[in-house]
């Protein structure tokens, strides 16, 4: 099946810093989503971005489908940005395959 790798696995930021999270996938996809999992376990959908670039406030994402990667940018990070960020892809069928996540800690 499709493989999804995220980097870095862990990230510690000072409040106000910018960061880039990367997601590499091993095959063509027809769906790519970024999620944020808060400390209580809930997954929040950030972006549906099979290709192109989107922005939502301080967050933006870019997917280059032909090169099989996606990037999530966090600007002016805040402590509330802490948590785990997951990239998830859908190739054929209806199954979302998740990467291992990037654990982000933003320090005040």
């Amino acid at each position, binding site marked *: 099946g499709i493989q*999804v790798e995220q980097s870095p696995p862990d990230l510690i930021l000072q409040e106000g810093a910018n960061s880039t999270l990367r997601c590499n996938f091993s095959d063509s996809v027809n*769906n790519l*989503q970024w*999620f944020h999992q808060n400390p*209580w*376990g*809930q*997954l*929040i*959908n950030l972006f*549906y971005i099979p290709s192109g670039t989107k922005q939502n406030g301080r967050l933006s994402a870019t997917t280059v489908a032909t090169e099989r990667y996606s990037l999530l940018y966090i600007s002016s990070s805040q402590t509330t940005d802490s948590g785990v960020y*997951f990239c*998830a892809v859908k190739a054929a*069928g*209806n*199954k*979302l*395959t*998740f*990467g*291992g*996540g990037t654990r982000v800690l933003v320090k005040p």
Partner: protein
Amino acid sequence: DAGVTQSPTHLIKTRGQQVTLRCSPKSGHDTVSWYQQALGQGPQFIFQYYEEEERQRGNFPDRFSGHQFPNYSSELNVNALLLGDSALYLCASSLDGGPVGSFGEGSRLTVL
């Protein structure tokens, strides 16, 4: 507008027992997917239900079964529990298998 709701939020079982977890999808969504998330890992796809049928299944044994009701709500059943079944079980809803719009807060199962 209620999002995805799951119950119970926490439960403790012993090996060999059976468990049923419940999920109500977001209003207007007709597709329910279940995921298992072990500690420190990404969620793993268990199966998806659409029109009361299992539409796709991940790499999980037959001990994991499910059901979808006419109101689109769903149950996940796990029989003969093993210690390794301890995990956070997440339910996601979508419209006809499209992008996942919402996840529930999960049911945290501990098997002793």
